[in-house]
């Protein structure tokens, strides 16, 4: 396993503005009826194959997704973001995807980062490209969130032995070989750490790529709370001890 740093200076990257059709983007959405439309509008300017996994929403999230030329899968029950991503990855692989990306439904991510992740995979001959807001940009990130995320980085280094700068960033891209090594079993928020664990265990090469995470009052109200960090740590340690 090797960590390769992606380009630090985004402007220096000659990246395509559109992803090839071999790339499938998985969007896990729960109660995102209001925000999903603009996110898909933006995403479809970059990606042609998009899978939205509605994780048992009761606000018409799938109906919104169905207005767009995207695949829509619906969990009949809310299982959690980890489970929804695994469903989407599974579907994308079945459809013959050569690359699979994950992307949040809440508008925090910039779709223009996806081609950069793709290029990073190609240029570095890596199987996993992981977005990092700490080598990229995170305008408006609250100080407490920054501290919690930093603590998460150290926790992950200790538990998984993987040296990344951002452990809970939802924008990533895998090659098919990489995606086949990922099997998310922690259904809820701890899946991000589980993915890193599996990347570390796979022995495959990964690369970190600077990305932008946009914070606003709206995204902060919906996203992970700082207090969830302890629950995530407990889920990971509990699972390690008991299985």
């Amino acid at each position, binding site marked *: 396993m090797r960590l390769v740093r992606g380009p630090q200076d985004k402007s220096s990257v000659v990246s395509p503005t559109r992803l090839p059709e071999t790339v499938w983007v998985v969007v896990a959405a729960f109660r995102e009826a209001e925000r999903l439309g603009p996110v898909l509008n933006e995403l479809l300017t970059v990606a042609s194959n998009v899978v939205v*996994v509605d994780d048992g929403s009761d606000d018409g999230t799938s109906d919104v*997704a*169905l*207005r*767009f*030329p*995207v*695949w*829509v*899968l*619906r*969990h*009949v*029950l809310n*299982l959690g973001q980890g*489970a929804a991503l*695994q*469903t989407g990855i*599974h*579907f994308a*692989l*079945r*459809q*013959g995807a050569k690359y699979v990306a994950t992307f949040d439904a809440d508008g925090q991510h910039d779709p223009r980062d996806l081609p950069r992740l793709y290029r990073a995979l190609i240029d570095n001959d890596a199987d996993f490209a992981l977005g990092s807001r700490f080598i990229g940009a995170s305008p408006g990130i609250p100080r407490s969130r920054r501290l919690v995320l930093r603590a998460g980085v150290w926790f992950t280094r200790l538990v998984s032995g993987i040296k990344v700068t951002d452990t809970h960033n939802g924008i990533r891209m895998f090659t098919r070989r990489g995606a086949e090594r990922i099997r998310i*079993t922690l*259904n809820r928020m701890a899946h991000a750490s589980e993915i890193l664990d599996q990347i570390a265990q796979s022995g495959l090469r990964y690369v970190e790529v600077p990305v932008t995470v946009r914070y606003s009052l709206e995204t902060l109200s919906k996203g992970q709370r700082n207090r969830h960090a302890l629950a995530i740590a407990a889920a990971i340690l*509990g*699972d390690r001890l*008991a*299985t």
Partner: protein
Amino acid sequence: MTVFQWIVVPLATLLAVYQVRIAFRQRARLVPGMVWASVFGAIAVCVGRPGIPNQLAHWLGIGRGADLVLYSTAVLLILALRWSYARYRYLEQVHTALVRELALERARFGGQVARDAQPQARKSA
């Protein structure tokens, strides 16, 4: 005998007998029935004859019978907790697999324009 003993000993004995009956009537319940019968039997003995756990504790080098019961209970609870967690994780995975399979089966392609040229989902891969 104390009031506590008057209450617990007959109750634990009855439960032990009941579990033995179930164990022999339903073959599938043989092992769990005998385990529970042993637990209730041990409770009846320990409460009815406190000297026995005391002697056993002394023999094991623990000291008091009450400590032996406490330590044993702690160990059993940890084992039970681990077993319950493993069981919970198994059920969670089964339930997730079921929900996932339904979602995969019912995948739909959206979009007004694209609907006419809807790609076929490949399920064989």
